[in-house]
């Protein structure tokens, strides 16, 4: 096919994608009273739309037409400055691919998942907002005009708010919804101010006008813009310390929405940062990269540490999103540092590492949330302490969750390992490429990345082991049943994506060429692949190589070792099923099993300066404390950011507003004076 044809095809499919999402949102509402029809219509529409979007973005990236795509108007606007322009450029297409891939898997999953709400909640509303959110996120990645961007950004936040508050009869949900709403708008405020700064220099709102605008700003303005965008997009991405909405809002949403939020919604923050830092603001000063790298490192370590303390399966996954955003930011921060020190090729490597981790995280976190959703669907609880033994009744879900757990723990040969390997490589090469003591940042961040990876592995041993292995800890868990086929299919798609992204990184990296070409003028995929694309390299002569495919094949080739041992020695041995050894007591009960809280206790004790764990034990006994009749146990971990930052801040705001209330006395005369003084001040200012 010729390029022109490819271009037309991708744009047409993109139009289809947007139209079908919109149709799905509206059509779903037409069937308010018919749950089954509404489910089929809304999730059918979103599946088809996501598929169109996926093909469109993959075509645009794969054929290289994305680089030359021009912006076009989606529909005509009647107001000056406000233009509804979209553009399928490489960066947008890459993120569009992520949202479409996840959207497809989630929509298929939702056919089965929505059935859990029948008779309880209105599925039509869920379907409508689900389509609207997907539409808004897709448009965020495609918008080519700051006004339109902010508009769809708000639609995205509002529809996400509606979805978070879907089960609004629970107090917890309402609180989480409001927190999300408030934080999200603080972020939007920062972004708005940032765009105004850029507008001052460019005189227009088109993203093509913003390209490289940093050169026309004064250093002070540029730094201000950087900080505003970092905070604004950082809230959405969930960086520490702006993350507090994330572990509150993600768990209470329906699981398909949690997956979408953790997988893609927070990536809009990453998209925004990449767009602004690399496309708009030009060559950065040194401290930008240092800031982003430090924030990334801190977010990664704190995210995983808090995740370890959770025994609510979905909150645990939500905290892991903070960790992974941190890892992505390590890549972006390193890229900014390289850009500052004049190494565009290394900057591309670091950016590729960050972006690769972005899609990887979307895929495995989506998968894990879907698994958690299936568990919730079947056991009606999110508390891991009540689960256990689910691998027996939920074989496929367990397998898919295990794949996701291995992937997120950055273990070879799956995708998490590949992107962290790239991150390590770029950090290691940063040491040589950077003058001055700043270079020590790189290996130290690398060490923290190692800590993060190992803690994540510990956390997922806990998450998988306590949820799916051993004996069921409650009746719910004992009666668990496998999820319906559509839910398994949704998880299956993402599992396949994890395996593909893990085993064939070199084929996938080609799709990132247009992105690095657009932002940094480099194409690295050729340098990153060796030996017919079977081996990934760190882009320098002896930097290091890895081949996940090779490792996997070799592991299979080594199977004869245990095989021969069995054949020679163990052929005649028999296998018997017996009870677990119970120290001579009368049988093991589920109460004797290790709990999620118990599992993470050593880590809680080691990091006790951070967690400040508190525990209360009350015993009632007749003659000796060792034979308690009733026992009550409570254990808490302090959330430092809530108690040390947000609560004092909250009190401060309330105190100031109480003082300010005196102004609002209710007398007309006083108000007239205010107006007069304001007018005077404005006149003086104008002079």
């Amino acid at each position: 096919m010729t390029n022109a044809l490819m271009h037309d095809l991708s744009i047409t499919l993109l139009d289809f994608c947007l139209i079908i999402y919109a149709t799905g949102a509206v059509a779903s509402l037409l069937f308010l009273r018919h749950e089954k029809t509404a489910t089929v219509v809304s999730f059918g529409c979103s599946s088809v739309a996501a598929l169109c979007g996926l093909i469109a973005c993959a075509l645009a990236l794969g054929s290289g037409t994305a680089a030359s795509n021009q912006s076009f108007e989606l529909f005509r606007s009647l107001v000056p400055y406000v233009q509804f322009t979209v553009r399928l450029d490489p960066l947008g297409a890459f993120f569009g691919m992520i949202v479409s891939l996840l959207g497809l898997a989630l929509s298929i999953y939702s056919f089965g998942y929505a059935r859990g709400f029948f008779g309880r909640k209105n599925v039509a509303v869920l379907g409508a907002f689900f389509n609207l959110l997907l539409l808004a996120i897709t448009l965020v990645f495609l918008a080519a005009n700051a006004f339109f961007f902010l508009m769809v950004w708000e639609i995205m936040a509002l529809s996400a708010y509606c979805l978070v508050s879907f089960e609004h009869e629970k107090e917890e949900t309402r609180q989480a919804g409001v927190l999300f709403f408030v934080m999200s708008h603080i972020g939007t405020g920062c972004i708005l101010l940032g765009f105004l700064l850029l507008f001052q220099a460019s005189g227009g709102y088109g993203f093509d006008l913003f390209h490289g605008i940093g050169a026309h700003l004064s250093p002070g303005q540029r730094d201000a813009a950087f900080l505003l965008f970092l905070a604004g997009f950082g809230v959405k991405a969930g960086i520490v310390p702006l993350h507090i909405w994330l572990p509150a809002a993600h768990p209470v949403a329906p699981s398909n929405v949690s997956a979408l939020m953790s997988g893609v919604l927070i990536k809009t923050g990453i998209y925004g940062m990449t767009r602004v830092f690399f496309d708009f603001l030009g060559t950065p000063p040194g401290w930008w990269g240092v800031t982003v790298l430090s924030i990334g490192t801190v977010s990664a370590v704190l995210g995983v540490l808090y995740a370890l303390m959770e025994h609510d399966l979905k909150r645990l996954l939500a905290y892991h999103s903070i960790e992974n955003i941190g890892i992505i930011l390590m890549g972006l921060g390193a890229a900014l540092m390289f850009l500052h020190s004049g190494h565009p090729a290394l900057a591309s490597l670091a950016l590729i590492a960050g972006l690769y981790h972005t899609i990887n995280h979307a895929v495995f976190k989506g998968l894990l949330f879907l698994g958690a959703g299936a568990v919730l669907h079947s056991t009606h609880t999110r508390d891991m302490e009540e689960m256990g033994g689910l691998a027996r009744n939920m074989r496929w879900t367990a397998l898919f969750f295990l794949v996701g757990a291995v992937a997120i723990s950055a273990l070879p040969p799956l995708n998490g390992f590949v992107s962290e390997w790239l991150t390590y490589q770029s950090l290691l090469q940063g040491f040589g490429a950077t003058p001055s003591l700043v270079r020590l940042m790189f290996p130290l961040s690398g060490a923290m990345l190692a800590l993060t990876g190992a803690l994540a592995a510990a956390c997922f041993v806990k998450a998988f082991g306590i949820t799916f292995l051993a004996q069921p800890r409650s009746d719910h868990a004992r009666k668990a049943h496998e999820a319906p086929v559509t839910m398994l299919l949704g998880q299956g798609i993402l599992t396949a994506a994890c395996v593909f992204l893990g085993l064939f990184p070199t084929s996938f990296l080609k799709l990132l060429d247009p992105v690095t070409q657009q932002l940094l003028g480099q194409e690295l995929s050729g340098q990153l692949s060796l030996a017919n694309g079977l081996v990934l390299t760190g882009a320098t002569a002896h930097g290091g190589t890895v081949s996940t495919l090779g490792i996997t094949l070799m592991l299979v080739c080594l199977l004869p070792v245990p095989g021969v041992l069995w054949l020679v020695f163990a052929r005649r041995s028999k296998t018997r099923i017996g009870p677990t050894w119970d120290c001579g007591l009368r049988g093991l009960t589920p109460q004797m099993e290790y709990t999620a809280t118990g599992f993470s206790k050593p880590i809680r004790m080691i990091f006790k300066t951070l967690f400040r764990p508190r525990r209360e034990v009350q015993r009632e006994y007749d003659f000796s404390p060792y034979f308690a009749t009733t026992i009550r146990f409570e254990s808490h971990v302090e959330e430092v950011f809530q108690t040390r930052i947000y609560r004092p801040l909250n009190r401060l705001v309330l105190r100031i507003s109480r003082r300010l209330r005196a102004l609002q006395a209710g007398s007309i005369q006083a108000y007239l004076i205010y107006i007069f003084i304001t007018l005077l001040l404005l006149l003086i200012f104008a002079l």
Partner: protein
Amino acid sequence: MNLNVTAIVLQTALLLLLAPLLSGCIRNWKAKLQNRRGPRIWQPYLDWIKFLRKDMVISEHASWVFSFAPYVVLLTALMAGLLVPTIIDQAPLSLFGGVLALVGLLALGRFFLALGGLDPGSAFGGMGSSREMTIAAIAEPAMMLAIFTVAITAGSTDLSHMVQVTPGATWSLLNPTHVMAFAALFIVLLAETGRLPVDNPATHLELTMIHEAMLLEYSGRYLAFMEWGASIKQLVLMTLLVNVFFPLGIATSASPAALGLSLLAYLAKLLALCGVVVLIETTNAKLRLFRVPDLLSAAFVLATLALLSTFLFQ
């Protein structure tokens, strides 16, 4: 891409056969130092062959993960071993991954080992898994930082390349960077292989056990795979230490004479390292679990100092 099948097969055989010998030597020497007669150095071979012949009892609560874990532990340890140069300065599968892949593979084995510990639903297993993952997590940054220091000096994460540049001009035995990184990695080795100040490999059924606690429900050939895997892991980490820091005598060509000499040198270095481990094991008591982080933070500080010294001495 040319894969040398002979080299792969030979190295696999070397790893499989040498690992029990080292475990046996350590056990025997430790007993000698404590004025006991101790088991013969061949005892691990006999033990594991016996385990292989025995019938297995599998817990009624266990799922397929329990049976899958022993294979993962054994195969990842072997695979990791194929990434390290042993008696020739070119590891057979260097192209498939360097030191980062090695650490990843060992972590994959540990992941499944810990799941295998949790699966039968015994409190011992859970306790072992919890502790193993905790210690691994705090050992990891020290290990990576020490490895980074070496990788930065060698300019590569490829182990063969590291071993090849080590005898070069920039390296000397008493280089402070070198010494401190070695010390850090040695402490990590003790933690990773469950050696004495961290875990006591000789305890069985004590509340202090870590590695043994996870294996409690394993029997028969699965137990053999698990123990053999752990032993290979120990050999791999020791090889990493002796060959990256002291590549003396390693063969640079595949001639039989060079390989023979290199094998002798390799054995001598490994046995010397075992001797150090034995000395430490006999002269130190086991640390309380919550004192282990102090030891490992010492390793981390050493690794940081090593890194700083590369900066100072350049």
